[in-house]
């Protein structure tokens, strides 16, 4: 097989801290190389260097025989390298079509050729089986649709090397399957793919080789077929992880959150369920099932049209999120960049955001206390940051997610609404987060967990309610919680078997 890319001894530091230590990477024609590692291992940084977004402090890059200097993304794209970014970067005000053509608009004497663009957009979206009208604004798309548009865009560059940084972190299983088909097709056409993911169970389906990074070092490179998931995990975290879904002796007691006939037009209908103290209740469903809308309505980011919410046997009438927080409810939102974090603020400022008021000394910020609490959380969740004063915008994706968790855990909530809590989080951290959820419920707290990874719900939930197109279609419990049962309830029935 032909070697088409070599990265040699790449070093990179940010403000004096080295995050890549002489890293090597080889890529062969027509292969899928899986790049895995813990949060903050340096995967995205390495790929940003390849894409010309970051400049290495040392090291060489060869494309084929030739050494290249990649000093901006335009050059990388020119040389046939394209990337699906972990941190999605669509322009919300623009349409899908405009986003796909940013920087390479088709034109006739300086005028945008919208007809041609529209036609190509349809074609590309069609190739990926996406039914999104090209004129939809990006801001009106769900996260999973946004991610699919990003994937479409990267593929449409027809590049020789395609970098995918966690492409499946926010898309549904059906879309994942489709993406894999496309990856296999691209592979056949001689395109090489670097595939970054925290979902290790995906790798055997697509990857030819797997390269593991930890703390800015390459730990191992191997043929995928010769490496078990267990070995990969061990290389990643540097120790044996026996069980991602730890055991839990929780004691389910009285109802703590009751939702009765909650309605929101166009989002969900007549939703009724009860969450008990000490319980882990999962909500499963496909994209667009209305799960995110449901929890954000319970948390009163949006007001419901009708229906009731009861907390601790008492009817509540929330008018804004702070009312919900006062009743000891926390929502760990789905999109950390948009709803979770202030990227310009540092770890401590973000972590204490919700409790500043409570720890304040007469309206004044209590910095020593905040710093103490933030440090405690950093330790508890093993957040990798240079210090609690590091801007969260500079943290790796998974560590940003942990900061969001820290922020909500500090409010010491009794009811935790988790909307995709493990998105983009590495296996080790995932196990830690589940352990944490377990500890919470064992102390009588209640957790409502939305997850698109059914495996995860199977692994941890005491009970799972399934939503489909805004309605609760059923509930599974104990032994009945299997992927098949959930899937059966989650797929729309009426439409001659087609999923979507």
């Amino acid at each position, binding site marked *: 097989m032909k070697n088409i890319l070599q990265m040699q001894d790449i070093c990179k530091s940010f403000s004096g801290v080295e995050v890549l230590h002489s890293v090597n990477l080889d890529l062969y024609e027509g292969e899928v190389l899986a790049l895995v590692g813990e949060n903050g291992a340096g995967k995205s940084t390495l790929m940003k260097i390849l894409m010309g977004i970051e400049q290495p402090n040392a090291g060489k890059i060869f494309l084929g025989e030739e050494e290249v200097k990649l000093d901006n993304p335009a050059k990388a794209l020119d040389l046939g390298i394209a990337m699906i970014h972990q941190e999605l970067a669509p322009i919300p005000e623009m349409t899908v079509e405009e986003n796909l053509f940013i920087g390479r608009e088709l034109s006739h004497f300086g005028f945008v050729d919208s007809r041609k663009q529209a036609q190509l957009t349809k074609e590309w979206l069609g190739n990926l089986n996406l039914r999104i009208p090209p004129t939809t604004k990006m801001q009106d798309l769900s996260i999973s649709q946004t991610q699919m548009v990003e994937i479409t865009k990267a593929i449409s560059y027809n590049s020789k090397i395609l970098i995918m940084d966690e492409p499946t972190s926010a898309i549904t299983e059906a879309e994942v399957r489709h993406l894999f088909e496309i990856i296999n097709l691209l592979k056949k056409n001689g395109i090489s793919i670097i595939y970054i993911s925290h979902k290790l169970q995906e790798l055997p389906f697509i990857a030819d080789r797997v390269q593991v990074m930890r703390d800015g070092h390459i730990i191992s490179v191997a043929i995928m077929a010769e490496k078990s998931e267990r070995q990969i995990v061990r290389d990643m975290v540097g120790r044996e992880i026996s069980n991602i879904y730890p055991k839990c002796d929780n004691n389910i007691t009285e109802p703590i959150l009751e939702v009765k006939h909650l309605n929101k037009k166009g989002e969900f209908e007549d939703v009724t369920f009860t969450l008990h103290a000490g319980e882990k209740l999962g909500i499963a469903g496909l994209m667009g099932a209305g799960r995110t809308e449901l929890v954000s309505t319970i948390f009163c980011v949006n007001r419901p049209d009708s229906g009731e919410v009861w907390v601790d046997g008492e009817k509540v009438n929330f008018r804004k999120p702070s009312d919900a927080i006062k009743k000891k409810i926390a929502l760990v939102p789905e999109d950390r960049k948009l709803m979770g974090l202030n990227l310009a*603020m540092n770890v401590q400022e973000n972590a204490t955001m919700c409790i500043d*008021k409570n720890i304040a000394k007469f309206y004044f910020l209590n910095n020593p206390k905040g710093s103490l609490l933030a440090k405690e959380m950093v330790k508890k969740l093993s957040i990798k940051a240079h210090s609690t004063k590091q801007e969260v915008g500079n943290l790796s994706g998974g560590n940003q997610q942990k900061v969001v968790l820290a922020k909500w855990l500090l409010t010491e909530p009794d009811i935790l609404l988790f909307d995709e809590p493990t998105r983009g989080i590495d296996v080790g951290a995932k196990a830690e987060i589940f352990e944490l959820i377990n500890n919470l419920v064992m102390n009588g707290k209640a957790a409502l967990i939305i997850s698109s990874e059914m495996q995860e719900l199977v692994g941890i939930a005491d009970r799972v309610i399934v939503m489909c197109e805004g309605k609760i279609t059923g509930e599974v419990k104990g032994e009945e919680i299997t992927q098949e049962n959930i899937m059966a309830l989650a797929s729309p029935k009426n439409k001659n078997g087609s999923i979507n």
Partner: protein
Amino acid sequence: MQNQEKDQKHNTATEQNEKVPFYKSSQFWKSTGIFWALVILVIIMAISQPAFLTKPNLINILKQASITGILAIGLTLVLLTGGIDLSVGSVLAVACMAAAFLTSDVQGFPVIVGFIAGIGVGAIFGLVNGFGIAYIGFAPFIMTMATLSAARGIALVSTNNRPIFNLSRTFIDVSNSIYFGLPSLVYYFLIVAVLAYILTKKTVFGKWIYAVGGNQIAAKYSGINVEKVKLIIYMIMGSLSGLTGVLMASRITSGNPTVGEGYELDAIAACVIGGVSMSGGAGSVIGTVIGVLILGVISNGFDILGISSNYQRIMKGLVILLAVFIDIRSRSRKNS
């Protein structure tokens, strides 16, 4: 794989890392770059203009800068939340008229009434701006541009274009006295600056200002009442415009409905030079104070050189671009 043990200790936040001396950190240079610009500017002026580095002249610079300074500090708060207020100059004029009217010999109210009225009038305009922006959803630029026009109209209509004279002696003393060698205006500026500094850096509300400007949606999810924060900020801005109106009336010893035209641009310029981001969430009161001083030093220098005010405007435009250019540069450098 042999270094498994060693890699066990993650680089989670360690005590050690936080003890880098502040003056060595990149943060230090980033946050003080604009201060060094001011120092260099002063040195250049002092060397080339003997008249510059004299006590009366320096005091004069401070005095001249004070009015713009108070407005700029208010605007810093507004810009931090991701908004803008164009109406400050016009609101100032209404407050100026109100204060002058009440303290003139016709009405003869005491000074304190003039203050209350001026600041109150400003706060009401701020309330209107804030309500329109936070609760109705007008874009800040639009809302405050409308207020800019309307408030100026109110100031002009109130006396049918005529100025108000014969203010009480005690009222005139407000802006024209000297305490411990410094003009009273400078004290007002300093007090406002210190209060705003404490508000933004030390209080919970201050953090909310940054939170709202940095990421409004995340702020909302965190239980921050985004609308209320904005409303309060515009009211503070209005009150400060009102305060400047009162000080202005005293300083020019009359109520003049055309006073303060174009002040919003000077104030915005000072913020921008001081590193306040126009898109919200970044900047500081100290930066703005330095921005105000830079503008003051430059226009004073030109005055000494005898450059006409028309040329000064041209230079001011260039200085703004230069300052922002340096700011952008220092920001991008800190990452590499």
